[in-house]
């Protein structure tokens, strides 16, 4: 047995490397966020309470969508339809909410349920089609992106729905010590998402499928179910996102949500989740969404044009992925 100590010696140092690797991944993103905040705090108003409220409000919807997107990307999929589906959910919910003769509480309740159901419907569609026929979800969701947008336009005849109950509007603008209620709801969703991915068998199998689908299947896991489930979870969060959007802006329109999917994907990627699946976390996604929000807000305060802002955000997405590569190399050695 004289080789035993030879093989265990390097293995010991690997343990430390593996642990630092996971910590480094999220800590690195956290440090980037803190650095951004420090840089922008030199501009006037950035840290004022009204601006913080403003940032958190802006982050909220993208954060909610990004949670769902994390589930989909973790199994190696992608969902391009979330922006359009959000719009569809919103017009469905808006229609329900403005039905005549409903009392306000009932109207909001039924609207929320219908938004979530509409989201589930599209999530199921995305998941079932891509899992059953083994079609890349990029293509399937490109299709449903158009279906949902068209449906939203058809249902409303391209018109905007507004005049929701006053209580609903108040709910959307409520804050606690400067923190928007809607952001707190998003944080609860983050916590649930983190719990599911980090602590449950369901989450473990999702990671497993993202890493190696065949190994997971041969270990007795129903890959079809998990794929459909991931897309459905994404749909639920899109439904919730639609309600949050309506509560904040008091409209439901078939032309909202354009490009939301790209922001959500950006947050997930900046948060360190691998596009090929199997690696990443909700905490990373939270940090990624915050980085995008802080960046957008800070650049406005710096007086940059919208065009410049968009360019810089683009560079940051690429930079994040490049940094991730280096972090990987650093920790792998």
């Amino acid at each position, binding site marked *: 047995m004289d080789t*035993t100590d030879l093989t265990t010696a390097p293995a010991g140092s690997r343990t430390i490397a593996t642990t630092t690797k996971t910590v480094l991944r999220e800590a690195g993103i956290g440090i980037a966020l803190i650095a951004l905040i420090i840089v922008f705090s030199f501009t006037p108003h950035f840290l004022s309470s009204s601006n913080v409220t403003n940032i958190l409000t802006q982050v909220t919807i993208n954060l909610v969508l990004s949670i769902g997107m994390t589930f989909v990307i973790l199994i190696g999929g992608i969902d391009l339809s979330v922006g359009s589906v959000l719009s569809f959910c919103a017009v469905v919910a808006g229609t329900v909410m403005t039905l005549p003769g409903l009392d306000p509480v009932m109207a909001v309740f039924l609207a929320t349920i219908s938004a979530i159901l509409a989201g589930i419907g599209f999530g199921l569609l995305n998941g079932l089609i891509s899992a059953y026929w083994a079609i890349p979800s990029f293509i399937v969701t490109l299709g449903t992106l158009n279906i949902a947008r068209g449906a939203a336009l058809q249902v409303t005849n391209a018109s905007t729905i507004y005049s929701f109950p006053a209580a609903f509007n108040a709910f959307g603008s409520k804050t606690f010590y400067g923190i928007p209620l809607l952001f707190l709801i998003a944080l609860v969703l983050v916590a649930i998402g983190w719990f599911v991915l980090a602590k449950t068998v369901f989450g473990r199998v999702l990671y497993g499928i993202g890493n190696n689908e065949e190994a997971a299947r041969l270990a007795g896991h129903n890959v079809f179910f998990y794929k459909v489930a991931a897309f459905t979870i994404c749909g639920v969060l899109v439904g919730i996102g639609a309600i949050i959007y309506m509560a904040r802006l008091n409209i439901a329109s078939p032309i909202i949500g354009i490009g939301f999917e790209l922001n959500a994907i950006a947050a997930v990627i900046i948060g360190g989740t691998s596009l090929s699946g199997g690696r990443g976390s909700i905490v990373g996604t939270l940090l990624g969404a915050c980085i995008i929000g802080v960046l957008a807000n800070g650049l406005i305060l710096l007086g940059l044009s919208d065009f410049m802002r968009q360019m810089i955000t683009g560079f940051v997405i690429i930079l994040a992925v490049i940094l991730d590569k280096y972090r990987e190399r650093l920790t792998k050695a």
Partner: protein
Amino acid sequence: MAGATAPALADAAVKPVLALSGVKKRFGGVVALDGVSFSLRPGEVHALVGENGAGKSTLIKILCGIIQRDAGTITLDSEAYDPHTPGDAKKAGIQVVHQEFNLLPYLSVAENICFEDMPRKAFGMVDFPTLYARARKALDAIGLGDVDVRRPVESLGVAHRQLVEIARALMGESRILILDEPTATLTARETERLFEIIAALKAKGVAVVFVSHHLNEVFSICDRVTVLRNGQSVMTADIASTTPDQLVTNMVGRQLAAAMAAARDLDKTGRIALSLRGLRHPASPHAEGVSLDLRYGEILGIAGLVGSGRTELLRSIFAADLPLSGTLERDGKPRRYQNPKQAIRDGIGFVTEDRKEEGLILDMAISANVTLASLRKVSRLGLLNKRAETLLTQQLGGEIKLKYGGASDAVSTLSGGNQQKVVLAKWLANDPKILLLDEPTRGVDVGAKAEIYALLRGLAEKGLALLIVSSELPELITLSDRILVMSKHRIAGEVARADFSEERILNFAYKDERNHGHH
């Protein structure tokens, strides 16, 4: 040139074409090479042997320019050789057939073979007639006359892919050919063919570095051998003046002989655990399928050429692929599994041939891999109990002598042998009654092999029924109570333990092939 390995240099009358001295390489804190000296003469076949992790792969990567050494000297024809890219190595006349496939799966066999130097017509268009002709010639030269060069590589089995890889390396004019485990996926006949090719190259003055776990191959075709152990070259000798035992002792410092010789108590086999009647895999050309009975406590070996339907048999039992027809009885009760999940619930485990593709989730923790098929045991109401998971991993890790740092380390940090043990642990965690094993020691070093043999024997003694597919006949002969030989998706013959011999088994394996050749 004063190397540490005196025996090699004592008779260095012939000027070496390639000489390494004191080559070192470290990755972070891990020392991969710690002073390797090695010389290669023109026209010799030089074996490079050592346990997994001894540094063979690192050495090869340095020679072909994939990574750079930290220290030491390398000379090629007495001139400093310092390749920075694989292209440098190719220009210098060094060709490598890597252990991992480097083929382009969606391109045709011909395009793969000629990829480095595509024949062109005007305007850079590919000259397909020449391309196919060249590829045809290359394949015929290595005895792959029956493979259509227009087929996409993804449609080939592993053995054929390996041969295509070899054909590709032989396309370039090489002075030095490095073969990393070239026979791992080949059957005896294909291996023989490869050896003829090596002999022909040798006659042309090409120096061949032959990396292999199979010492019988080393002794049958190599002129000299260098043993690596723990990143150092510990021995270089003429093949004629050494013995397999001496090599093994140098590789591991312990003997595999004990494990190979240990006798099994054969009378312990019990009732029939699994009974197949006419089970037919979708890829089988014959309607009759496979019939066999597997008893508790029995180790039943399945021999046969690559492509004879051995893997497919296991896959159709496990419902990884659904059988077309036939019946399966488990403990005498008919079963029709619709997916692996049902087979697992019925007490069956399946150690697949390709642990990286099908067996393991490489980037995930050892513990996560161990519990992958038995998550229910370490969870309640869908919540994972990480402590229970770690405990189960430690317990099983101890039983199977797994060498690892911590249960949360990624499986990719383990050596091949230990990775294979993790695959075994994954199924053992589920308390299976039947284990299907496909090439259970593929790419595993001799030391770990002995341990896996002992482990499998122990499982059979505990009453498990084992069905083992292997391309290594010595392995089947060592382990099995009985061997079924497959040919073209049918059972071609059965050999009882008393009659075990490689010749007898091969006779059955080639039975159909020979008949085929006659018409």
